[in-house]
C-alpha cells in the first residue's frame, strides 16, 4: 500500500509500533446508508468522513490532496448527477487520486455492473445493506 496516502499522525499498536490512522471517505446519497456505513467503519476504529454526492467527494479529495490522508473511498453505485461508477472513473483517471482504493456498494446484484466496476479498477463490490463481516473482510484485506 502506498504510504504517502497515510497520515503522519499515528496511534500505537500493542507491540509499540506506530499504526497509521486509516481515513475512509464514504459517499452515498442516502442518509440512512451513510449512517450505517459510517457506524460499521467507526466500530473498526477507522476515521470516517461522509458526503452525499460524487461531486462533493471530488471537491473534498481535491482539498485533501495536500494532506494525502484518504486511505479508501467507499461509494454507492446509484446516485443522482454522478454515479459511483462515474466517480470511480474520475478517481482512476486522476494521477493524484488513482492509487486510492475504491469500493462500490449497491443494493442490486447485477453481474454486468459488478464486472464493469472491477474492470474499471474498483477494489471490491459490496451488496447493500452492508454487514459487519463485509467491512471487516474488506479492511483486513486492504489495511492489514
Amino acid at each position: 500500500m502506498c504510504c504517502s496516502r497515510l497520515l503522519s499522525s499515528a496511534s500505537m499498536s500493542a507491540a509499540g509500533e506506530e499504526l497509521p490512522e486509516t481515513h475512509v471517505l464514504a459517499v452515498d446519497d442516502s442518509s440512512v446508508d451513510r449512517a450505517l456505513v459510517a457506524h460499521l467503519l467507526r466500530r473498526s476504529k477507522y476515521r470516517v468522513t461522509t458526503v452525499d454526492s460524487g461531486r462533493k467527494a471530488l471537491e473534498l479529495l481535491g482539498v485533501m490532496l495536500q494532506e494525502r490522508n484518504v486511505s479508501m473511498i467507499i461509494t454507492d453505485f446509484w446516485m443522482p448527477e454522478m454515479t459511483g461508477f462515474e466517480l470511480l472513473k474520475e478517481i482512476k483517471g486522476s494521477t493524484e487520486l488513482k492509487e486510492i482504493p475504491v469500493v462500490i456498494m449497491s443494493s442490486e446484484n447485477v453481474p454486468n455492473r459488478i464486472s464493469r466496476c472491477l474492470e474499471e479498477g474498483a477494489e471490491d463490490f459490496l451488496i447493500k445493506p452492508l454487514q459487519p463481516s463485509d467491512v471487516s473482510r474488506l479492511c483486513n484485506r486492504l489495511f492489514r
Partner: protein
Amino acid sequence: MAVFQLQQQWVDLISALFREEFLDSQFTQLQQLQDESNPDFVVEVVTLFFEDSERLLNDLCSTLHQRVVDFKKADAHVHQLKGSSASIGAQRVKNVCVSFRNCCEEGNLEGCLACLQQVKHEYTLLKSKLEALFALEQQIVAAGGSLPTM
C-alpha cells in the same frame, strides 16, 4: 407499570413486528450494532429513515401527479425508498417498492398510484409501531430496567 410488565410489552410488540413481517433480520443487525458507545443508534437510523421516506413519498406524489409523468424520476425515488427500507429491515415497505418499481418500468400510472397508496399505508403503519416500540424502550430505561435480549 412495573419494569417487568413494560419489558413483556416490548417483547410482545417486537415479536409481532417480526411475525407480521413489518421487520426482517436487517433490523436485528441494527440492534446488534447498538452498544454503550452508541446507545441510540437504532433510533437515530430509524429517524433518518422516517425523514427520508416522508420526503420521498411527497416527491413521488408530486411526480405521479404531473401532467406528463416522468416514470424514470419516479423509479429513482422508489429505488431510494427501497434501498433505505432494506437498510433498516422494513420488509413490507421494501416489498411494495419492488412492485412499485415494476409499475414504473412499465409506465403503468394506475399501478404506480395504487403502489403509492400501498407504500404510504405500510410506511404509516410501520412508523406508528416503531414509535410505540421506542416509547416503550424509553419507559423501560426510565424505570431502571434494560431491554430484553431477543
